[in-house]
């Protein structure tokens, strides 16, 4: 065995104490659901993890009642300082149970333990920490003095960063004084259930946080519930469109964080080695299952060949395999359905004339896997240049001038993220000015911070999460 093959370095699942069945978390307690149950499996081994309840309209109703009761009776009466204390407690407990949460997240989602340990979980704790400090400072949120909460928020989150997306939703909502009913994605409900336990450990008043598990139908029940004041959704543009239609005329506030087809623009004066790293982390972090992924590489034509060569060489040291192995870089695709989507889109890419190159990875027998893949010779009209693949597939296009790069980058119904690589500050800032994207990374990519607002233009959704701007989504007087 060569050194580079690295002996197995598995993170143990011994730290977990999972239940066999999880119900919903309503009114501060774990309760049985009134409907069917469903299983969550580990996408890397296809092994069963636990059984969860598929939330019915009745379950959702119970949760909303509990949330409303908690809002009226307790949460809206607490001072901001007290709300802050609860949120600080939650942040601290997440830090204490960080390792357990990282292992659970990797098991349920399929992403490498390196990512859950170093990115997902620390950011989730940081999000609660940051928003805890806002709870008693709402006068400074730019919404006037004494801004009021909206009431009960219904929150639906995706499977790609389960606990982190939960933090992005719950922390600002609670800081602003709302109570919540949250639905995790059906393939990744596990860390939400552990979070429910954390709420109990923090002694959070019953009903402030309610978690109802389930799939699309459960989400619909939340969106349609009459006694919810605010809907916050992160997920696909298709579903987001449906939600925007449903809430029309209802008076419900809504924020949507949807899909993207982010352009990573590399100029010929880019710091080349770091640009290669940035391209790679832009599209292969979390197996490309990221709304803000840099899924289009727009590279200046005069360095195209060199960049592609360097990318291919660098992809040679990316390790695909058991997500619980600490040396794994590329984990499993979250579900069979998602894998099929990726496979179909890639086939289309080849059919339309793109040249496909995939890293030579040993694919495990069980589980859902897709090797890191590059498409060169991509034209702007190709499917792989326009459709969000949500997988480890990079479409490479060229440009000749900054204006052309901008035009191509903007030429999409999406507008979530973009990257700019150049050694020239004036160019970076001018290009950033002209890009129609809500998050722009210069000489870096996929950086997140609770203090930094995140959200999209156009069909990537509206509203921002993070920063001061993230508060307005949960206070009266906010536009959305």
């Amino acid at each position, binding site marked *: 065995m060569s050194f580079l093959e690295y002996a197995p370095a598995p993170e143990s699942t011994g730290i977990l104490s999972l239940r066999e069945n999880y119900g919903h978390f309503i009114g501060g307690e774990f309760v049985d659901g009134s409907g069917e149950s469903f299983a969550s499996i580990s996408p890397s081994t296809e092994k069963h993890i636990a059984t969860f309840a598929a939330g019915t309209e009745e379950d959702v109703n119970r949760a909303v009642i509990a949330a409303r009761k908690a809002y009226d009776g307790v949460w809206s009466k607490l001072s901001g300082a007290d709300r*802050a204390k609860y949120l600080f407690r939650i942040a601290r407990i997440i830090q204490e149970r960080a390792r357990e949460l990282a292992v659970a997240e990797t098991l349920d989602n399929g992403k490498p333990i390196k990512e859950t340990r170093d990115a997902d979980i620390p950011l989730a704790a*940081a999000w609660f920490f940051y928003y*805890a*400090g806002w709870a008693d*400072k709402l006068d*400074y949120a730019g919404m006037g003095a004494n801004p009021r909460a909206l009431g009960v928020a219904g929150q639906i989150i995706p499977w790609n960063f389960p606990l982190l997306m939960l933090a992005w939703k719950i922390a600002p909502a609670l800081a602003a004084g709302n109570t919540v009913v949250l639905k995790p994605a059906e393939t990744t409900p596990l860390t939400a259930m552990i979070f429910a336990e954390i709420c109990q450990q923090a002694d959070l008043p019953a009903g402030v946080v309610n978690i109802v598990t389930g799939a699309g139908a459960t989400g619909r029940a939340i969106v349609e519930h009459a006694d919810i004041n605010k809907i916050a959704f992160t997920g696909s543009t298709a579903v987001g469109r449906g939600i925007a239609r449903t809430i029309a005329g209802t008076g419900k506030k809504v924020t949507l964080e949807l899909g993207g087809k982010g352009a990573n623009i590399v100029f010929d004066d880019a710091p080349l080695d770091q640009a290669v790293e940035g391209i790679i982390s832009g599209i292969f972090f979390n197996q490309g299952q990221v709304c803000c992924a840099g899924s289009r590489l727009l590279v200046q034509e005069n360095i195209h060949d060199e960049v592609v060569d360097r990318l291919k060489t660098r992809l040679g040291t990316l390790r695909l395999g058991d997500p619980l192995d600490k040396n794994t870089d590329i984990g499993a695709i979250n579900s069979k359905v998602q894998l099929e989507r990726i496979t179909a889109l890639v086939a289309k890419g080849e059919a339309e004339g793109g040249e496909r190159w995939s890293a030579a990875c040993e694919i495990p027998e069980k589980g859902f896997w897709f090797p890191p893949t590059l498409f060169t010779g991509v034209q702007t009209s190709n499917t792989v240049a326009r459709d969000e693949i949500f997988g480890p597939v990079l479409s490479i296009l060229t440009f000749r001038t900054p204006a052309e790069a901008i035009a191509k980058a903007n030429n999409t119904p999406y507008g979530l993220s973009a990257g700019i690589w150049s050694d020239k500050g*004036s160019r970076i*800032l*001018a290009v950033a000015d002209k890009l129609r994207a809500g998050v722009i990374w210069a000489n870096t990519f996929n950086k997140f911070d609770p*203090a930094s607002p995140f959200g999209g233009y156009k069909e990537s959704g509206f509203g921002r999460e993070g920063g001061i701007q993230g508060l307005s989504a949960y206070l009266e007087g906010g536009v959305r």
Partner: protein
Amino acid sequence: MSRLAVPKTYKLFIGGKFPRSESGRVYEILSTKGDFVANAALASRKDLRDCVVAARSALSGWSGATAYNRGQVLYRIAEVLEGRRAQFIEEIVSVEGATAAAAAKQVDDAIDLWVWYAGWADKYAQVAGNANPVSGPYFNLSVPEPTGVVAVIAPQSSGSLLGLVSVIAPVLAGGNTVVAVPRCDAPLTAISFAEVLATSDVPSGVVNIITGKPAELAPWFASHADVNALDLAGAGDLDWVDLQIAAAETLMRVLPPVEGVPVASLSRLTAFTETKTVWHTKSLI
């Protein structure tokens, strides 16, 4: 026969350590009943000088840490303070003559005030800073930065813990380092608070506390060329205008005395920041 106590000795807190005053001087602290409680160190100008050196050398690390990190450290201080609540209540009762209820309220208020400021560490820049829409192809951003080494005279007749916390917390939240002179006649809580700091991940030198007479020490702060700002919150009974005049020599930033305990305010935090505005050209070609 009741157990014989092991009384605590109270020294200064300089550079993360607890030295006695280089002058060797002490002064008696009595309980309100007149019983001997302890000898507090009586700090000299040389102790003050050492504090400023320690605060200056700790500055680049503290101000260079991420705001998130500073917020975490400050929150940790609140946790440790909360854990020692009973001890502080006892000390306040003994030396301030407060009732147990009043002492408890003071400690709780101090903790809550501390938490409030801790939460500002990674946010105040978003409220006090901003992008500026200048005319021309320029990116323009204003950012508040820490002033540097701040000297504070804590309230001298209000709650010994609450008064100290109310002047130190905003200074730290803004990324500055601090040298503080606590309430002279009730200094023990300040040194116990220093023990909290010493066990809370606070880097050495970020906070320095010297017990002693403000009248003796304040002029040395005011004329110290390596102190960037002076908070005269508790200097109302001194010739504080003279201090302000002395401070003008190096254009030290000065906050005037206040009555009682300063209220929690963002402006107290931003008073110890400097706004830096950066311009950068923007051009596509």
